[in-house]
């Protein structure tokens, strides 16, 4: 075991971990941040997506020890301190982009990087951006609609 410091959603967490634990394991099993989901555990589905220094990554493929000192954002860190929803969360609800919900947090963490870097992305850009996130339920149309809706609201 070794002790590391992780900066998650603006707060520092000291955690004792095994050398080979992934960020996903630490988030879910040690810190109870279960919004981030475990699917394939090998980079194939995207439901474990979080942001590290503002970039979307698969937390199942990142060693927690290597994430020390970086700014990690999970779905729990979106919106304003748990009171208001992030525009993406709101748009996913309104557009009906959630069925079972298992992919949703990963989709939103991914789309959140897209909207931070691209104002009013085209449908093509949206579909390309979320290519690493699978949804078994919605058929993607409503997810794309939700991201477009959030984009128009945040473009200002």
């Amino acid at each position, binding site marked *: 075991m070794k002790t590391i410091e992780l900066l998650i959603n603006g707060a520092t967490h000291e955690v004792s971990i095994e*050398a080979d634990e992934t960020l996903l394991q630490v988030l879910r099993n040690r810190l109870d941040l279960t919004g981030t989901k475990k699917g394939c555990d090998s*980079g194939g589905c995207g439901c474990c997506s979080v942001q590290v220094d503002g970039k979307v990554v698969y937390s199942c493929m990142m060693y927690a020890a*290597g994430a020390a000192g970086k700014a990690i954002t999970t779905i729990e860190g979106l919106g304003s301190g748990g009171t208001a929803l992030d525009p993406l969360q709101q748009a996913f609800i309104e557009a009906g982009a959630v069925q079972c919900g298992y992919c949703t947090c990963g989709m939103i963490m991914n789309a959140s990087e897209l909207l931070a870097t691209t104002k009013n992305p085209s449908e093509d850009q949206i579909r390309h951006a979320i290519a690493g996130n699978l949804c078994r339920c919605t058929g993607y149309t409503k997810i794309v609609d939700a991201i477009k809706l959030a984009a128009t609201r945040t473009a200002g």
Partner: protein
Amino acid sequence: MALNLEDYFLPASLQEASTLLQRYGDGAMVVAGGTFVHGLEVRGLLTETVALVDISRLGLRGISESGNGGVSLQALTTLAEVGAAPLISRNPAFGSIGDALQYPPRQILNVGTVGGCVAAAAPLYDLPAAFLALDGQVQASLAARQRAIPLNDFFVGLFESALQRGEIITAIELPAPAARSASAFLKLETNANDLSILNVAVRLTLDKDGKCADSRVILGGGVGETYVRATSAEAALRGQTAGEASFAAAAAAVVDDFEAVEDHRASAAYRRHIAQVYVRRTLGTALARLG
């Protein structure tokens, strides 16, 4: 899952990383973005590894112009950073790099590194094929020694490179492309999560009369243990006017250049067919980029 793993190190200097790699010898594994290393771990292939040496804090990150128009990509530069660099995206000679970065998901582009995708030495990866078409070379460091290894000599076998134990890639260097050069890349895959069936990277350099002064045709994917340089296809282009006729001749010649793999993804005959189609298409794209 790597049952014997003792520690995860984050050295702050190349020297410190070197010392760790020497101390642990075969028990050490370099981690850059870790996306390939993680794949080894979940397949149970890291059982001998006792120390992961994460080199992401060495500061080897960034893209710069090296003397007279060449480009140096430091080893820890992410694939996304390569794609976003104007030095790369604005130069048609480097078009194959932009093409190769169209395939991996955003989450891999943000984490996977230039050094990692080359060091993995898997002919299934896209970006190294583009680097080969551009005559790239590896800069590697072992303790105090720094050396250059042409990519042509770098890939020795499947997952096997010319790196010595403990040697760290510090950069990939692309020489200044000759005037009137353009490159392109294409990959065939069954779906976004599967391994490549075949990929092709080409570079075309024209003289002032529009004839092929020089070219590279590189094959990857199901072509064997390493990338293949298709010298017959290159020979068919030399001195010919760039256009449909010479591209068709290069496509016809490419089947002599490799032993197509036969597996559940595709038959050898299909791979030979696709190689011809993709050689023609990538050459067409490269020519259009010179337009």
